[in-house]
Structure formats: C-alpha cells, structure tokens
C-alpha cells in the first residue's frame, strides 16, 4: 500500500495530567509540500509538533502517525530525526560560544582515524552547505554569537538540512526576525520545496503563510478545524477559522487626549557591555506626552531595546544622557529607581526577563507591589488575593486558579500577567517591548484594547515593535531607530506608511532632512 502522503497524523490526542491539550487532530503533508499550520496560542500547535518530533514519545499520546504509509512509533527525537523529520524550535537551540560549523555538526562531528575532530572537513562541508543555501556571507569558523538572531535562525536551518531532512518543521521561525531576514528565510523555504523537502510552517503571521504554504491546516482549542489549499482561502477566512469569530478590525483605535510633555530623553547613548567601543545607541533624544502612544520601530538589533532598557535603568553596559520627568532631571540607575518614579517596563524576552516560571500566576502579578501589601510585617493575604483577582479579571487572564504556576499558561496569558505585574505600581509611563510577540490573535486584540484603555486614563505608552502594521495601527507618533541612531520622528497620520518607516530604518539619511516631517 503506498500512501499519497509523506506524513499522516490521524486523530492525535494528548493530555497532561487530565487536561486535554489535543482532542483528535489530523495533519497531512505530501512530498515536497509546505503545510501552514495555524491556530491561536494554546490551540495545540506546539504540542502537536512535539508529538510528531518524538519529544512526547509514542505511547504518551493517542492516535496514529504514518510516515510514508508506515506507522511511526518514535521513542525519542533521535528516532524521528533518523527518518528525516527535523524540528526547528521557537527558541534558538544553538551554543553561542561554539563556531557556526561546530553548531551545524553538533553531536555528529566528523572525526579522523585518531578519533579527533576533523575540523577541515567540518569547515569545508559547512561552507558548502551555507553557500548552497545562499548564506555564503556566514563564516563557519566564527562563533555563532557573532551573528544576530536572524542569522542564527538561518544557521539553525542549515543545521537541520545537514541532517538530510525530508520534513522540516518550522515553529514560529520569524518571531524575532526583521522583515529582510524574514524574506531571506521565506526564499530559503521556497528553495527547499523546489528540492523536494516538505515542511510544516507554523506562524501567527498570516502573510507568511499566504506566501509559502500550499495547504493550510487550522486547529483551535486542541481540535482539528479543517484543511484547504491555500488558494481557496483568504486571510480573513483563516483568522475566522482560528478564532471562531470575525476579526474585521485588528486594531481597535480609540480616540484619546494627548497632554503635555511628561518624559524627555536627551542624548541617550548606550555602549555595548562586551565591546565598549561599539555604540548600541548613539545620541538619541525624544519626548513623550501624557496620554500618548509612542511607537518605536526599527530593525531588530538597531538599538530599540537598548534605548528603552537604558531609560528603565536595566541596560547592563554603561550609558549616558539625561532623562527629564516633568521637566526635572531624574537619575535612574536601576529598574527599582524607574518603578519608583512611575516608569514601568514589560521586557521583550518574556521567558527570561518577564516571568518567574515556578511561581503562581498571582504571585507573579503581585511581585512588583508586595511591599505595599503588608500589614504588621506580614503579607496581607486577603488584600493580595483580591488585588490579584481584580488584575486577572481586568486583563481577562485565562487560568484555572490564581495559584497555578505561571509556566502552565499560554504565551498570551503569561504576557497579560506580566503586563498586569507592571501596572501594579500605577506607572505614569509604561514601556512595552514587543508586547505581542508570540501572542495569538485574540490576546493581541485584548492587549491593544488595554493600551487604549490605559492612555485614556492618562498613561503614556512607549511601544517597541517589529511589526509595522502594529506600529501604524496603534501609535500616535513613531520613532524610527537605525544602527543606534534616531532616523525619524513621525506623526502617525495618513501619510505615514510601512514603506516610509522601512526607508527611514534602512537609509542612512541625516536626521536634519527627516526633521522636516517630524513632529515638533
């Protein structure tokens, strides 16, 4: 019996200690085909891929996986890699200190007769592989840490291909890539398809799915919703299937009043902690007004995160420049100083900087305000729990109990909890660094709603984002950062387009020319 499919997953079920994660999902991939897998966060996409790649061994889930028509019963990732299924995870799995070539051959290092690693062969083969993937500019002898997140993602793909992958699983591969890097990655996937490598492409970014996928499979709440050729679906169709409702307006803009200048940053310069000769942020000045949403756009690595970290007192390297709050200079040396002055930040890297995974959702939320919740030296539990309850219902955080460890929540709900935590100290200025990264469509919408609710209360928002539609859809004003410098300061009106922002981010135009269009 020959199957028309390379891979068939039938009625996959999986539960964690009684909580159903997958309630019977089908997924089929033909040879050389790219299947886009869509679903909100928590829909079960990642669990599905862990079942497929053998992270969850055969026997711990229900249903059946057929590989070229034969049942596949993998006990570990090793077994699935042996048949040619390779997964590229959301988080990078490279060893930064090792060279590109060592990473590509990690675990399968070629060795000579004496049992020593054959570096020459490793470098030559890596260089060949990288050239084949049009990544000739990457030097296989250099440590991976030399390259940015986007390049690292490409290196990871090169590693997957060196394992002779028949089916490549890409789990949110572009969540930390710039648009140029995303384009490179998509071209790479096209090339692979042409060479006969099938892939499953998981992404929240539907324009990527449209571009790359031949077939789309949609899942929702752990259930199979359906599959169809890409040509038969519009983006709106996919969103409707994913969320189970219409989402015609992605950005719920609301009118709000903008007041006087509250924060001024003058001449902010940040030096690279590892290489003080390098200026990660170079003499950037800007201001924020009360009730204003200031978007900060720019390529990944352009210095946006460094800039807001410096303002929040969290930049590890040395930095200079002046910060004025209500016209008075303030000194912010630690995040604690910033929080006390009414400046809070939701960091970019939720897993490493946002959540305390083992701590309860509620205790994560109350972490920033614990000092104010004491009575007679002890935490006033009743007050703490009622504050937590209020926060959970205000941001509609979905959790079985406020005392559940936050690690058990989906990305979107974790993010809402982190935002909640940073709203606790009642900030006047809230910095959101990539607030919707790895967050599903539904939670995104709620975060946008919240942003507007906050500015209506008079808060000022500084939002760093890599998603230009988001920057344009939300901001009142947009700063563009490129190579550590301020490249533009635009009022967000009808004339501001993604193209203009990109042009400012990439072109090395002097600021004086841009100031003609900038906001006073």
């Amino acid at each position, binding site marked *: 019996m020959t199957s028309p499919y390379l891979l068939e997953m*039938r*009625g996959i079920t999986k539960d964690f*200690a009684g909580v159903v994660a997958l309630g019977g999902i*089908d997924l*089929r991939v033909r040879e050389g085909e790219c299947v886009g897998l869509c679903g909100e966060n928590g829909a079960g996409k990642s669990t599905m891929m862990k079942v497929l790649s053998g992270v969850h*061994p*055969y*026997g*711990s*889930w*229900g249903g*059946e996986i057929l590989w070229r028509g034969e*049942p596949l019963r993998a006990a570990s990732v090793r077994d699935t890699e042996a048949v040619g299924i390779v997964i590229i995870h959301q988080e990078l799995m490279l060893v930064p200190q090792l060279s590109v070539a060592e990473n590509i051959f990690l675990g399968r290092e070629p060795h000579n007769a004496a049992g020593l690693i054959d570096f020459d062969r490793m470098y030559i083969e890596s260089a060949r592989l990288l050239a084949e993937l049009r990544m000739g500019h990457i030097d296989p002898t250099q440590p991976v840490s030399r390259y940015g997140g986007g390049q690292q993602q490409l290196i990871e793909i090169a590693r997957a291909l060196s394992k002779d992958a028949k089916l490549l699983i890409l789990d949110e591969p572009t969540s930390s890539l710039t648009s140029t890097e995303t384009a490179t990655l998509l071209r790479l996937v096209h090339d692979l398809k042409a060479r006969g490598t099938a892939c499953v492409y998981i992404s929240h970014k539907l324009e990527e799915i449209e571009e790359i996928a031949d077939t789309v499979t949609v899942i929702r709440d752990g259930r*199979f919703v*359906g*599959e*169809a050729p890409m040509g*038969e*679906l519009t983006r709106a*169709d996919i969103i409707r*299937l994913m969320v189970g409702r219409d989402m015609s307006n992605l950005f719920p803009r609301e009118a709000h009043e903008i007041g006087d200048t509250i924060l001024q940053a003058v001449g902010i310069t940040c030096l690279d902690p590892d290489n003080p000769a390098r200026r990660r942020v170079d003499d950037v000045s800007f201001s924020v007004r009360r009730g204003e949403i200031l978007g900060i756009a720019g390529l990944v690595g352009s210095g946006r995160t460094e800039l807001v970290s410096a303002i*929040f007192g*969290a930049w590890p390297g040395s930095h200079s420049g002046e910060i004025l709050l209500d016209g008075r200079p303030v000194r912010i040396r*630690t*995040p*604690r100083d*910033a*929080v*006390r002055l009414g400046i*809070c*930040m939701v*960091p970019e890297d939720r897993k*490493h*900087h*946002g*959540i*305390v*995974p*083992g*701590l309860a959702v509620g*205790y994560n939320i109350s*972490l*920033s305000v*614990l*000092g104010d919740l*004491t009575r007679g*030296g*002890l*935490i006033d*539990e*009743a007050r703490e*729990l*009622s504050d937590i*309850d209020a926060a959970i219902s205000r941001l509609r955080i979905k959790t079985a*109990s*406020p*005392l559940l460890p936050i690690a058990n929540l989906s990305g979107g709900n974790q993010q809402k909890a982190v935002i909640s*935590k*940073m709203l606790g*100290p009642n900030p006047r200025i809230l910095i959101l660094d990539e607030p919707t990264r790895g967050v599903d469509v539904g939670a995104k919408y709620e975060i946008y709603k919240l942003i507007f609710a906050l500015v209506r209360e008079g808060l000022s928002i500084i939002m760093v984002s890599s998603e230009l539609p988001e920057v344009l859809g939300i901001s009142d004003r947009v700063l563009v950062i490129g190579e550590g410098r301020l490249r533009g300061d635009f009022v967000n009106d009808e004339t501001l387009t993604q193209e203009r922002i990109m042009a400012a981010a990439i072109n090395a135009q002097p600021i004086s020319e841009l100031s003609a269009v900038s906001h006073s």
Partner: protein
Amino acid sequence: MTQGPPPAAISPAVAEAAIGERRRTFRAEHIKTLFSRYKILALLVAIALLWALFAHATDGDFLTARNLSNLLRQMAITGMLACGMVFVIIAGEIDLSVGSLLGLLGGISAILDVQFHLPLALNIAIVVLAGGLVGAFNGYWVAWLRVPSFIVTLAGLLAFRGILLGITGGVTIAPVSRPLVAVAQSYLPTVAGWILAALVFATLATTQMMSRRKRAAFNLAVPPLWADLARLAVYAIGIFGFFAILDAYRGVPLPVLVVIVLLGVLTVMARRTVFGRRIYAIGGNIEATRLSGVNVQMVKLLVFVLMGVMAALAGISTTARLAAGSPSAGSLQELDAIASCIIGGTSMRGGAGTVFGALTGALIMATLDNGMSMLGVDTYWQMIVKGGILLLAVWLDVATTSRR
C-alpha cells in the same frame, strides 16, 4: 473549506498494543505525580522505615525515649544550619563556609566566656551579631561584587577556619561556664512542654481553618472538610507524640526547642513576608524579579545574613554541647546542612524548598548517624551510606519531576 476525510480504520491489534502502552505510560506518570506532590510524606515514610529498621536491629533500644531525645539533640545543630541553608539554596546560591563559620563563632563564644567572663546574654548577642556581619560580608561579595557564591564561601571555608586556628592557637578553649553549658544541656520542664504542644497545635488548627475560609472567599479550591480534619488529626498525633516522647525522658532539650521555634518563625517568613516571597522569586528568575523593581542584591545579602545568624546559633550550641571551644568544631557540617536541604526536597536550581523539608532531611541524616553508631557500624561505612543516600534522594527527585 473541505473537512479532512475520516481517519482510516486502525487495525485492532495495533490499537490494542497502543492502548496498553499508553496505560503503562500513564501509570508511571501517575506514580511520578503522586510522588512529587507528596514528597514530604514520602520522606516521613522513609524516616518511619529507617526507625523500624534500626529498632529491629537494636532490639528496640533505638526507639527508647532517651535515644530519641539524644537523636533530636544531635540533629539540632545540623537543623539550625539547614534552616539558613535552605533559603540560600532557594535563592539559587550555596554556602560552603558555614562549617568553618560555626567553628569560628563557637570559638569566639568560648573565648568570650572563658577569657573575658562575659555574661551569657551579652555573649550570645555579640556572637549573633558577628554571624550576621560575616554573612553580610559573604552576601556583599556575592550580590554586589558578583563573585559566584561557590567561590566566595569556599574562600570563607578556608579563611574562617584559619582565623579560628589563629585566635585559639590551635588548642581547645575550656572549661566554659555553667550557664553556657546549660544552653545545650538543659531541658524544658514537662508542663511547659505540654503547654507548648497545645499552643503549636492550636496555631496550626486556627491557621488551617482560617485558610479554608480565605480560600472559599476567593473562589479557590477548598479541600473537603474531612481531609483537613484528617490532616489535623495527623498533626495532633505527630505533635503530642513528639512531646510525649521527649517528656518521657527529661523534657524538650533547649536546642530542639530553638529548632522548633525556628521552624515556625522561618516558615511564616517564607510564606507570609515580602522577604520570603522575594527569595523564591529570585531563585526562580532573578532577572524577571530585578525588572519588577525589586532590589535583588539586598535580598541576596539578607539571605546570607540569615545564614550567618543561623551559623552563630549553631556555633554557640556546639560550644555549649562540647563544653569547650574546639578548633575543629563544625568541620564538614556545611555538607550535612546542604545534604539535609537537598534530601528534604530543596531544588538545587533554586526557587523551591521548605524549612520543614530541610529539617526532615536533617532528621534523616541524624537517624542514619545515630542508628549506625548504635549498631557499631564503622565511621567509614557511615560516611559511605550517607553519601549513597544523598545520591539516591536526588536521583529520586530528578526521576520524578518532569523534564521541563
């Protein structure tokens, strides 16, 4: 949108094999979950088994009130250190210097007593203060100067012992005064013991009932009443049994009383104070905690101060117990304290652990020491067995917690 075709029929044999395999996996997972949830219970069962074993091997001598009282007194000093160590480990650090520090502080206490004839209260105050200062010193190096705690306290392990040898000239300081000896060798009167037992039980019972009401008020899952009552009954048996045994000999030994008080105070500190919560948060993710506006360096420093104070209490108790300041006092005690915490379920990765667990671990260590000594097992075998138990305990922990 086309709905996918229904999945093709799976052959019955394959299905059956798959179901069987799933069941087996689930059963294993189930046991794992149960074990990790009731880890403390498992430890208590382990203690019961050990006691039964030793009782059998010693023809009941092990289980006499006199020996159990002895055993608890032996455990008290490791227990004091474990009370501090557990927070150091929860905060994601380690302290290798406490054995030497115990020796140094015990030595200082002996010198103050023997050479300067200071009254006991002043002696204790000075030594506790000194312990806190040394802890602050360690903490400053770790938190502000960013030297890994392993190194800072390894340096302390050498240096504190060196200072002790220097100030004592390498000889035992003796004889210490009667009041100081009484710190380790006096007992709480029987009546006071019973009152204390009643107080402890009443506190536990009220807390539990209040927690029920609070949980209900905030729509949290409330355990069934019978479960809570059963739990209280177990507490009652445990607490009154404990005091009954101690009272059957001479009463509660003072160092044991100190450990009981520490257990209560530090458990409240861990659960109900800002400082306690922040220790867990720092151990879980220090960066996220720092970015929440918490002064994480100060929290770390204070954890080491607490450890220093515990080393001071342990040092005074040791000097009192030996009735002398010995230059070798406390050698390798840091390892017993760390082992107690780890056996008691404290995570080496930080972020998880309890005082009760650490003390249970200390009780297991003391049981092994005491039981094997009674059986006349050679010291070298005792060390091998304790090492093996530590390895086994951590393996069980690793094997029963899920990989992620």
